[in-house]
């Protein structure tokens, strides 16, 4: 199980992807999103305590762990997983961070808008295949 979300400064959903093929049903996808969103408070707390972007595991629910990464501009990246390695997760987040900066620099893109770029989607999925 591997669900990835990018959330904006005011908790707007910017991007969501199921990165591992699960034989889950509708309900489990919704559960994944719910767990990720519920972790946002923990992410904020951890973010203001830490001088690094990578926050490691910030919340747990049953057997699932939420790992988080926050950019300088306050954009949160969340990964729901069941015990993947720290190094792989960190590398994944760093790749997505780089892809996000490219999106943010677009003068037509506002930080509250959904990320619809297929290029971004491709980069996220490639990075996930490589590191996770």
């Amino acid at each position, binding site marked *: 199980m591997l669900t990835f979300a990018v959330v904006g400064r005011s908790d707007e959903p910017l991007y969501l992807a199921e990165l591992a093929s699960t034989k889950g049903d509708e309900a489990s996808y919704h559960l994944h999103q719910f767990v990720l969103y519920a972790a946002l408070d923990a992410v904020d707390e951890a973010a203001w*305590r830490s001088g690094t972007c990578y926050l490691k595991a910030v919340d747990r629910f049953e057997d699932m762990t939420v790992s988080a990464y926050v950019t*300088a501009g306050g954009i949160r990246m969340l990964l729901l997983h069941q015990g993947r390695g720290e190094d792989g997760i960190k590398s994944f987040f760093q790749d997505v961070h780089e892809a996000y900066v490219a999106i943010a620099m677009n003068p037509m893109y506002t*930080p509250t808008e959904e990320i619809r770029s297929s290029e971004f989607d491709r980069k996220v999925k490639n990075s996930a295949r490589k590191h996770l």
Partner: protein
Amino acid sequence: MSRRMRVPGTSEKRGTKRTEVSLSAFAFLFSELVQYSQQRVSNVEELEGRLKQMGQEVGERALEMLAWREKGTRKETQIVGTLSFVHTVVWKALFGRAADALEKGTQADNEYMIVDREPLINRFISVPKDLGHLNCAAFNAGVVRGVLVAAGFPCQVSAHFVPQDGYKQRTVILIRFDESVLLREEMKL
């Protein structure tokens, strides 16, 4: 004196040469921005407001790009660190040199000032008498606000002419942080 302005590149790898743009090209673009805004406002405050808004959009993007490029996976969580980032990294990336001073205000706890003796942006701007105290460095104030708000430090920012030591264009950018920022700083200490 630098005749070229830096522009944060969009598709550069970390560590490569930064792209530069000629000052005249930027000055031309900026003068058009000012004139465009001037036609759509009815007073000086509105004009400064528009320039500030434009600066804010630049600031938000500059923060993401520069933080990623210069600091990798580290980020600022305190006022001093963030202001220092604006004062050095952001100014250098946009104007080719760090700002001249970063001071804490004496009037109130939440006030800070960034001083620029000769803002690059005002180099080719002359303000007519009927526009009074207009300072086009309101754009710079917007950039600062964009960076600070995006970094999670809500504030009000304004640009003022404060000539001193023969620098007629000396501009002080005044930053007033919201109550919530001060409370958060206190809790951490």
